[in-house]
């Protein structure tokens, strides 16, 4: 087990914190000043516009920073939704043998739906928007989390402390929520980071395909999508949000790996 802070943890943590700060503060500082100003379209990066401008004259620096906000919302939203629903199903399937079969077959069904098609369908029904995207990305992720939670619960429920809790008269809800769930948390947190990272990437893909968020709400994905046609003349439109996206996703994954490697001091041997 590792103690102290490793490089991936510090790097990952710093990048995540900085991005969250951007996501929170960018709208306040910049005030969404990414207005369409045709007179300054397609400017190369320079002193005036650090990251250049796009075909409609919007400042890529401003759009990249404000894009962080929506990408982070998608990431956290998907991770949260997935974890909430996936954990509930996983806990029930793992603890109650009778529910296991039914829940897991349902999860298998859900897993078979392609995320991109679901996004297109949902966009058609609900209209495109941030929440549609979050639901569309979360749906196929839920079974994966449920599966993980189920396997963790199957291990934990065989631990003698669960039998001991039954023996001292604890009710089933208490055992699930106070004994099993807290001990599954470390695995869940690691899973959350991976879901978050992959959701941000998926959102970019969906936006690139034109079924993500609409271009007037910038996200890293749709800023890049907007620059697709002009890639040869204005590569910066794709380059800068692309770099931010890659670094952020890398940071989250590093952080998740570091969390996993760090292990859990509670579950290791005696410190004495």
């Amino acid at each position, binding site marked *: 087990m590792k103690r102290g802070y490793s490089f991936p943890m510090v790097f990952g943590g710093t990048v995540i914190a900085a991005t969250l700060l951007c996501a929170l503060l960018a709208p306040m500082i910049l005030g969404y000043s990414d207005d369409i100003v045709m007179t300054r379209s397609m400017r190369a990066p320079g002193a005036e516009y650090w990251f250049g401008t796009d075909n409609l004259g919007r400042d890529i620096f401003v759009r990249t920073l404000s894009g962080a906000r929506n990408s982070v919302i998608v990431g956290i939203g998907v991770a949260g939704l997935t974890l909430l629903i996936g954990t509930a199903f996983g806990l029930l399937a793992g603890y109650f043998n009778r529910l296991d079969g039914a829940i897991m077959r349902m999860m298998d069904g859900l897993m078979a739906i392609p995320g991109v098609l679901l996004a297109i369908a949902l966009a058609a029904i609900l209209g495109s928007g941030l929440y549609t995207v979050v639901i569309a990305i979360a749906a196929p992720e839920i079974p994966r989390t449920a599966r993980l939670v189920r396997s963790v619960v199957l291990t934990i429920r065989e*631990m*003698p*402390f669960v*039998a*001991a*809790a*039954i*023996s*001292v*008269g*604890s*009710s089933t809800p208490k055992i699930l929520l106070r*004994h099993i769930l*807290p*001990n599954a948390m470390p695995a869940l947190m690691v899973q959350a980071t991976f879901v978050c990272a992959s959701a941000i990437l998926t959102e970019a893909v969906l936006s690139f395909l034109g079924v993500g968020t609409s271009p007037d709400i910038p996200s890293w994905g749709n800023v890049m999508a907007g620059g697709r046609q002009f890639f040869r003349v204005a590569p910066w439109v794709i380059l800068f949000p692309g770099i931010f996206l890659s670094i952020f996703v890398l940071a989250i994954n590093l952080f998740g790996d570091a969390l996993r490697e760090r292990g*859990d*001091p*509670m*579950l*290791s*041997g*005696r*410190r*004495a």
Partner: protein
Amino acid sequence: MTAPILEADNIVRHFPAGASTVHAVNGVSLSLKAGEVLAVVGESGCGKSTLGRILVALDRPTKGAVRMNGADLSALTGAALRKSRAGFQMIFQDPGTSLNPRWTVGQSLREPLENFTIGTRRDRAERVRDLLKRVGLRPEFAERYPHELSGGQKQRVAIARALAGSPRLLVADEPVSALDVSVRAQVINLLSDLIASGDLALVFISHDIGVVAHISTRIAVMYLGRIVEIGPTADVLHAPRHPYTRGLLDAVPVPDPEQRRTRTPLTGDPPSPIDLPAGCAFVARCPHAIDACRASVPELRAVSPARSVACIRSEEISTDEL
């Protein structure tokens, strides 16, 4: 004549394992009075742990009944069963995993107090301190997490938790096997003190015959889900009447290099509880087996008032000849 605290009546427990069945316990009856320590000994797969779990209602028997102070446990469900659990508690083998690693010792000790509604919210802290004191731990241990404790200390906490509901029956499943030799004595002494001080009965499940000899008043020897011999500890150890008991005792290493074993050890392995042999389960390893042994399962018969043996040849073969 005091009434028994625990009575088990023809307990059978089978587990489905794919297409076949694991015959873990195949008809065990026993009864236990306050102040008694019944040791259940036997090798892996003999069903002693499954029996222990059934006695404290952590598992339900396929057939048979467990009565606690005369009340049938199988008749209880839900909240009634949860409340009745205060009367019978289990101590597990590995203290490292029998405490929730994310709970402080105090939280673990408060759990039974809350569930069994013992004391008021306010005086529970006091009761936790009392419990810790009973197992020889200082009050500040209430604030510690299991990973800050040694194995022996964790096992004391587990015993304190079991005592919280003032049980009449404790079932200890290999409570010292996971502990270092030098700290075992602490836990054994603690259990002996509990028995000496109260109206408690203890079922002590172990493969360690030395510890069993020290702590128990009676011994039940199990083989393949059945009791093959049961009786007062001294009698069973000094004059075994079942050939398996003899083989088991002969196999126990004696901590005295000048008295090395001269008898050849029992051959073969304990058989699998999946395919039960017809007749006596021990027949394949028994040096005294005759054809009649394969015919039917030998009954556990009284050979003296306190002593029973499940061997059809127990009358013809004396202890010395075994």
